[in-house]
């Protein structure tokens, strides 16, 4: 996701003046994207929100020596959100890995059984299934798929609670206040 452009930055102006502009854009970006991430199946919106949280976190961490402990606390909050969304993203990345692996096993098993049956077979002897190299591997991967999918649901519910809390506490205004806006 391309970051929203920050206008009016001046290399010769103070760190505070420039940081205010950047933080204002980054926190607005996070809040805007987070509102779009309220659909659990929208992986892209969740991914973009994570990136926005990361950008805000880094700019706040960078400027903590200037704005003090409140900036560190606001950065910690953004990091917490980023980490949680990162865990959801890890589930979204792992699920296709599991499914591709299962599909590969199926293809290899089918090819092995087919080869054992021979080119002139009239039907397939079920005894040949004992020859499938991955026959004992499916159940563990099914369990893993269920675990990863369910964990994702649990983490997403946690994200919603966290997001609602940030809204209630008006995180955007508190971050702007930290940098003197």
């Amino acid at each position: 996701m391309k970051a929203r452009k920050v206008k009016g930055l001046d290399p010769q102006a103070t760190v505070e003046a420039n940081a205010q502009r950047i933080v204002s854009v980054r926190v607005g970006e996070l809040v805007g994207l987070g509102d779009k991430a309220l659909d659990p199946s929208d992986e892209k919106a969740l991914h973009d929100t994570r990136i926005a949280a990361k950008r805000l976190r880094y700019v706040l961490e960078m400027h903590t020596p200037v704005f003090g402990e409140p900036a560190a606390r606001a950065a910690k909050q953004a990091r917490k959100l980023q980490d949680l969304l990162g865990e959801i993203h890890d589930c979204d990345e792992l699920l296709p890995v599991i499914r591709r692996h299962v599909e590969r096993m199926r293809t290899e098993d089918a090819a092995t059984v087919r080869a054992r049956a021979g080119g002139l077979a009239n039907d397939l002897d079920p005894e040949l299934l004992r020859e499938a190299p991955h026959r004992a591997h499916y159940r563990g991967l099914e369990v893993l798929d269920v675990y990863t999918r369910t964990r994702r649901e649990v983490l997403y519910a946690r994200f919603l609670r966290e997001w609602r809390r940030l809204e209630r506490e008006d995180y955007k205004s508190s971050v702007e206040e930290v940098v003197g806006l």
Partner: protein
Amino acid sequence: MAKAREIEGFADAASFAEAASLAVETRTDELFSFAEGVLDTSDIERVHDMRVASRRLRAALEIFAPCFPKSLHRKVLREVKRLADDLGERRDRDVQIAELERLSGSLSAGDRAGIGDLIKALREEQESANLVLADALERIERDDLHNRLIALVEEARR
């Protein structure tokens, strides 16, 4: 994960440009300090630390972008992003393998077999990602990324 190094003098910087030079200089040193042993897959924290350092450097380059000459900044940022991506590809496999090993411990022997098979496949991908990372480390050395970052810092100080 290694804590970010303090940027000395940042709070007292007279201008955004001066802060930019201090931040990029510190984050550059930090990145290259983590390069040693990063290809060792038996210690996955090393690649993690270097990846985090690459992201911090990238963030500094993006935050302070207006303080640097455009052309030089664009090229250097692109290379830092590419390095971060290569570190990320290795790290993603490290994380997945570690997660599967953790889960495996909670399962019955019968369920573990399939997961062990997947871990084996991921280890092969980890090795491939490590080869790409080895090339990336050679590339940044060959292209003198470290000194080009320092040249960028000098430009911001002018």
